């Protein structure tokens, strides 16, 4: 209350600036100095600062752009890697499928070959057995025939009479007509 009363009293005795304690000269001097300071700052300091800020801004933007590019590249590379992996998987699947098919074919071929070989072996064995049986038959037959011929010779030598001979010759001559 005291201060407000003192201010009201001072204001009523002089102008407002005086009442506020402001010195016109000092204020003017400070304004001129501030303007000069602003001009100097605008002339020498701000350009440097702005340039520095711009450069920094530019670097940051370049960095961001590089980061974005790197990210894009990373995405592309990842896509390429994925594509290559997909190709590789497909190729691997194809190789596995081809290998399986080839192995199946080889197995089937081997089975077929083995079957043919087995059949051929069986046929050869049968043929050889047949030949051996035939040879044995021939041998046995030959032996039997030989025995029969020898026995016949002996029987004829002992029992074949002259009249039998004449009859046989006569029959042979009739048969030969």
């Amino acid at each position: 209350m005291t201060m407000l009363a003192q201010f009201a009293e001072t204001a009523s005795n002089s102008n407002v600036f005086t009442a506020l304690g402001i010195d016109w000269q000092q204020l003017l001097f400070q304004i001129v100095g501030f303007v000069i300071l602003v001009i100097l700052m605008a002339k020498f300091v701000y350009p440097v600062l702005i340039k520095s800020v711009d450069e920094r801004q530019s670097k940051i933007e370049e960095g961001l752009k590089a980061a974005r590019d790197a990210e894009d590249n990373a995405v592309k590379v990842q896509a390429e890697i994925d594509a290559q992996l997909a190709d590789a998987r497909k190729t691997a699947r194809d190789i596995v499928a081809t290998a399986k098919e080839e192995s199946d074919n080889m197995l089937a071929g081997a089975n077929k070959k083995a079957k043919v070989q087995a059949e051929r072996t069986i046929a050869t064995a049968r043929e050889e057995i047949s030949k051996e049986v035939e040879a044995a038959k021939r041998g046995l037959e030959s032996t039997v025939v030989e025995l029969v011929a020898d026995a016949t010779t002996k029987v004829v030598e002992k029992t074949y009479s002259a009249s039998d001979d004449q009859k046989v010759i006569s029959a042979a001559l009739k048969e030969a007509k």
Partner: protein
Amino acid sequence: MATKISRAKLARYATEQLVDGNDNVIQELAAYLIENRRVDELDLIVREISEQFERRGVVAVDIVSARPIEAELRAQIAKLLGAEKLEANETIDAKLLGGVKLETASRRLDATVAHRLEILRSPSRLKEV
């Protein structure tokens, strides 16, 4: 140069001469063959002469048997060979066991027991039978 006379002509001539009773033709034929270096054809000419005789009803036959052949069988042989006159050269061979073997210039008949046993022993007897 003398023309070469065929075997058939020589045989026909020799046969005619022999039928006519000219036995000297044998010597003439032998001389001709020697002179013309055709001795190696002798067997063929003799065979041809035998065939000529066969056509005229005179058959020369070699008869081989284990026992002597009876006259009845000889007549049967002549009939079989179609011979009006049979000139038989008989041989006895006990190894034949039985039966008879006949051989003329154009025919051969082996009806011996030995031959039949040989056929029996032969591996290819089935084909022969």
